[in-house]
């Protein structure tokens, strides 16, 4: 296979065609009669001129250069790159779902409405939240909606001076971005030496200006915030609300309900926890659950059951309105619904069990070879530090690149920001013991190479279609156009 696939423009050959059109069998009309001259382009578009076979080979070869969950292990921390069962695609593709039009009247879409209604009931039960909006397009959109609801809640109570949102220093970058986009000022709270929210620091930041806090539990170090109930109490006593980033829900499924911890708002990443495919294969879906006092402000329309029929209900005078065209990313919701029903309560409990077991299995295997700044038992992911290897001149970036030679996708690196030379590993619940062992073995080999042959690691990757790309130049001088010679 060619390691450097050319662009389709480069394989273009003048006059070559993919299809031959049959002779015209209707009367020819001058173009001007159909399209006014001013709308006609002066020169033909410079499309690549290729045969059908050229096109098939080009795109097939490109697809074979792809790296994906379908081909390899993908331990990308915080992203939950687990296997998405194929049967969900079948279900979402059923004609009764896939051929609906969002403008069809409710009497013609009862099945879909029933599914959305039941799906809401299921996630309400799983999360212990009284109501969900299925509209958010993905996680960060759920966060944005959450922050808008926090604002609406305080405004309704006449507390417009609440302008600050507290966010731990280990948070996902989307958290401060969502708060800032909603007009809040972000206050950072530190992590303590165990990697958990520093309660003293949190208490110090409380003031009548606090609108709420955004927290991730388990946090981005993969640790369960064991003081979550106290944290919620501190916020509630100060008049604030608590938002939970649900990106890590696969660690909690069937074990604990965020609602019971005192959480007021929670988004789910259906494309992570509930197997909607994601990455390039999205789209995402980020339903938002809220506690009782926030229900009036949720977006409309909402599915309502009246007797045996389902309707779209717009009658919520305090709603913040619509935040998404139509009703959300329905296809992903169908897949998540299929996932929950096929696993059932026991299956969901096994998900969290295996996610946590797999992460701890890897953590133990690697703890002698890499620094582990927070050595506590972890949840579904853990964070190593490459600072030991950095003393040999080998950075975490080098380790990540070297992993590609061993046929593994690299973990998330340099995040969370509070860990020096961070390597954030999330194996997910769908990997076998053999895969985990092979991955651990590769990382151990690299740790040894960093000592005995550091240049081997620093020069990696050697076996990939392209070697180390100049990502600095790509970011500083992005060149996104094909320049015709």
């Amino acid at each position, binding site marked *: 296979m060619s390691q450097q696939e050319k662009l389709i423009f480069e394989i273009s050959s003048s006059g070559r065609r993919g299809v031959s059109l049959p002779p015209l069998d209707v009367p020819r009309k001058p173009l001007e009669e159909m399209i006014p001259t001013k709308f006609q382009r002066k020169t033909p578009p410079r499309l690549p001129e290729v045969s059908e076979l050229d096109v098939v080979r080009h795109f097939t070869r490109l697809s074979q250069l792809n790296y994906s969950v379908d081909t390899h292990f993908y331990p990308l921390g915080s992203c939950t790159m687990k296997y998405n069962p194929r049967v969900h695609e079948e279900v979402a593709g059923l004609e009764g779902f896939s051929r609906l039009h969002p403008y069809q009247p409710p009497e013609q879409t009862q099945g879909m409405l029933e599914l959305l209604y039941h799906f809401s009931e299921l996630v309400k039960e799983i999360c212990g939240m009284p109501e969900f909006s299925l509209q958010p397009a993905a996680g960060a959109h759920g966060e944005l909606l959450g922050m808008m609801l926090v604002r609406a809640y305080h405004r309704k109570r006449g507390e417009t001076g609440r302008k600050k949102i507290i966010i731990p220093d280990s948070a996902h*970058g989307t958290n401060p971005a969502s708060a800032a986009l909603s007009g809040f000022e972000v206050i950072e709270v530190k992590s303590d030496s165990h990697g958990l929210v520093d309660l003293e620091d949190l208490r110090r930041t409380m003031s009548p200006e606090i609108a709420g806090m955004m927290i991730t539990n388990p946090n981005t170090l993969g640790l369960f915030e064991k003081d979550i109930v106290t944290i919620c109490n501190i916020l509630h006593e100060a008049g604030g609300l608590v938002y939970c980033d649900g990106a890590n829900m696969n660690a909690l499924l069937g074990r604990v309900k965020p609602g019971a911890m005192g959480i007021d708002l929670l988004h789910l990443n259906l494309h992570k926890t509930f197997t909607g495919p994601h990455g390039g294969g999205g789209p995402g879906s980020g339903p938002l659950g809220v506690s009782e006092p926030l229900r009036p402000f949720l977006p409309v329309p909402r599915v309502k059951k009246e007797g045996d029929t389902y309707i779209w209900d717009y009658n919520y005078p305090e709603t913040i309105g619509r935040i998404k065209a139509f009703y959300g990313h329905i296809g992903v919701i169908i897949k998540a619904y299929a996932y929950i029903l096929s696993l059932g309560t026991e299956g969901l409990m096994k998900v969290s069990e295996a996610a946590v077991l797999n992460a701890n299995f890897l953590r133990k295997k690697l703890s002698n070879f890499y620094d582990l700044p927070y050595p506590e038992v972890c949840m579904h992911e853990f964070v190593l530090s490459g600072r030991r290897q950095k003393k040999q001149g080998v950075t975490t970036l080098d380790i990540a690149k070297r992993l590609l030679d061993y046929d593994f996708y690299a973990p998330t690196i*340099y*995040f969370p*920001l509070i860990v020096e030379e961070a390597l954030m590993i999330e194996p997910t619940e769908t990997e076998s013991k053999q895969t985990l062992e092979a991955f651990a073995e590769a990382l151990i080999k690299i740790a040894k190479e960093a000592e005995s042959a550091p240049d081997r690691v620093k020069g990696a990757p050697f076996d990939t279609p392209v070697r180390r790309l100049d*990502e*600095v130049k790509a*970011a*500083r001088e992005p060149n996104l156009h094909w320049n015709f010679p």
Partner: protein
Amino acid sequence: MEFPQELYYTETHEWLRVKDGEVEVGITSYAQEQLRDVVFVELPRIGKKVKAKQPCAVIESVKAAFDIYAPLSGDILSINKELEGQPELINKDPYGRGWMFTIKIENSGELQNLLNAQAYASKIKEAH
């Protein structure tokens, strides 16, 4: 690592050079090394009022995006336009051509809250 004696420093890794009632601000050699290659810099507009310890600029590197905090309160007097086309100056010459903006000093008492080179150097040592 080099921390010039004549500069003031902040705990958030900015440096300040005081001259004629204004301060020039940039990030320290340690900070640029941690950020790795800088690819984009967003500077405040000239005339903007900034408050001490509030974010007023953003640096984006291959690693992440970071807020830069105003070390003192006052108006932004000038910005380093060279960084627009050459953000790498922050890596190459953090204390010189990599300067970011200048602030008109409003209250010189605020300088008392800053660190000198020794104090900043020992802060960094502590962190490691």
